[in-house]
């Protein structure tokens, strides 16, 4: 349906995932190309985060395959995904509350000097990184537990950028961010695209999605519900796909929109 120039870096083929009595994902197909920003949208509980976690190695899919640069790979653990070059910002952030900002940013890939942690270099780099994201954090040496929601989210985003990932997955990265920080993150997404990275962006904010996405993939009740090329679609079409075209939600919403603009 969509044609993009870049090479296909990541592809999902018929991925399904069940939790107990809930079939969270059914037969999901998804492709991400280099230099492409794929927005993954869907209602609450549509399965977006589950999909991201399946790619990141947090959950193993029950069925289906994940392909990396055209070759099927098995991602058992988050390490595997990282080694492939997939960086993830989780919706629940998954930071270690007891570590300080620097500790969290570099967790698992600490900078070392003679085999010993190079705190000075890490601290310097951390400050630089946070500054580009326009966030004020009282000190990079206070534990994450004492940061505000938005400050934590920025730390989680900054963390994803520390390795040199090929594909970055951002699960609602701007949910808790202020206006300026949101702009910075969107800017960052565009910079990632310019550097030929693949990006999966999950967001409920249509304005953000329309601003940066190349492709919009819609999930509904754990199933694919359409992939749209940003240039050839509009907001209404996507919202219709999110809430279900068969459902009369779209009609209702249109009516409301007209009412609202009266």
């Amino acid at each position, binding site marked *: 349906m969509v044609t993009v120039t870049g090479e296909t870096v990541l592809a999902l083929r018929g991925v399904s995932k069940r939790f107990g009595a809930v079939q969270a994902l059914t037969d999901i197909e998804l492709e991400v190309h280099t230099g492409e920003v794929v927005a993954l949208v869907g209602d609450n509980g549509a399965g977006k985060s589950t999909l991201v976690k399946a790619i990141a190695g947090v959950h193993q899919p029950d069925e289906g395959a994940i392909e990396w640069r055209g070759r099927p790979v098995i991602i058992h653990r988050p390490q595997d995904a990282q080694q492939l070059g997939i960086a*993830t910002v989780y919706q629940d952030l998954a930071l270690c509350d007891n570590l300080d900002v620097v500790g969290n940013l570099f967790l698992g890939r600490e900078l070392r000097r003679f085999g010993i942690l190079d705190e000075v270099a890490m601290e310097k780099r951390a400050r630089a990184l946070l*500054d580009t994201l326009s966030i004020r954090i009282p000190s990079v040496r206070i534990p994450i537990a004492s940061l505000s929601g938005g400050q934590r989210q920025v730390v989680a985003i900054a963390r994803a950028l520390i390795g040199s990932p090929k594909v970055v997955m951002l699960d609602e990265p701007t949910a808790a961010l202020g206006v300026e920080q949101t702009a910075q993150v969107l800017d960052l997404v565009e910079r990632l695209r310019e550097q030929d990275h693949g990006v999966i962006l999950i967001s409920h904010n249509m304005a953000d999605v329309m601003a940066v996405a190349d492709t919009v993939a819609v999930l509904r009740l754990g199933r694919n519900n359409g992939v749209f090329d940003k240039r050839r679609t509009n907001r209404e079409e996507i919202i219709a796909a999110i809430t279900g075209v068969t459902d009369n939600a779209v009609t209702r919403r249109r009516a409301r929109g007209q009412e609202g603009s009266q």
Partner: protein
Amino acid sequence: MPTGGVNAPVPVAPDATPAVDPRLIVRQEGVKGYLGEFRGRMSSGELGSLPVVLALIVIWAVFGSLNSTFLSAQNLSDLSQQIVGTGMIAIGVVFVLLLGEIDLSVGSVSGLCAAVFAVLDVSDGVNQWVALITAIAGGAIVGAIHGVFFAKVGAPAFVVTLAGNLGWNGLMLQILGATGTVNLSGKDIVSRLYSTIYGQQIAAYGTAVVGVALFLLASLVDARRRRTAGVPFRPVADIVLRTVLLAITAFLVAYTLNQYKGLPLALLVFLIFIVVLDFVLRRTSYGRQVFALGGNIEGARRAGINVAWIRISVFTICSTMAAIGGLFLAAQIQSASQTSGGGNLLMNAIAAAVIGGTSLFGGRGKTWSALLGALVIGSIQSGMNIQGLSNAIQFMITGAVLLAAVVVDSLARRTRRAAGRA
């Protein structure tokens, strides 16, 4: 309603660096700032080890006033050796507690390894170094077994190590089986580790000087690097103040030890273990990952940390330290017996770690806890012994003192809890 400007992607000037947060209450330089910060920390309950040290001083003052022998050089010197066995085990326990787990087998493992050494060295006449290495390696293997059952099979550490507690105790009885208690020769490496006391004045003072000098040097080098890199650094006045405090403590200890027999090798080894493992915990990737696991396992896993490997290694460290502690305890009585590793050892080792300030819930603690906690427990024990009360009274008073020590600590941390951060 105008939108556009807010959510649209905008190029950001790379120099859009926010200024330092104006709300950050910056400390003044020098002693005054230090005191100011101290007051601030006091009111917000972030005093670190200070309350425990305070509790320790109170305990010493009370026992000292009840009976002057308590503060005699001889008793304090004895105390400094008596705490080593339990303290070594407590260091290992600190590691496990940092993960938010517990190891109930440390007592049995310490007894097992002592028995292995004694039987190999004395009964079987194996070279003492081989015996020593076998005993310690045995401890490591035991720990790895616990770790595998915990990390790979997924059995709760509590039950795995409880099973270990029984099983290794049985194995120890089996090993000692034929002869029962085995006396060490008193000339072997393990006995000497405990009985050696460096009598020359220079030993204790020299160690103190070296320790303080290293601390000063490291602090200065670090401050210089930080200043060059443009990140916040500790002002020189501050470093000097800390060094002076350390120096006073170190020389007081050295002086006291020299008043009696000198510097016990056991104490020196204990301190070296604490410093080295403290370094491992705070300055290496490995240590960082241990803390991360204790803070948020899922977070650590998602950060790509090999959770199973860290867990196994931590249990290995714990049992290895238990083995080493067991050897010190055997050296203390120059024999390995069926009671080795029994009694209150397990509870004392865990309590030492916890009283010293390591959290049972993971992610917060340091190896120095083992020293502080073992000192608190050892001091209570020693003070009680000097008083020579009946056991019933002794148990009650020990309980009360333990409670009092931890209450001091808790009250100091109250504000912190009130702020929802403990």
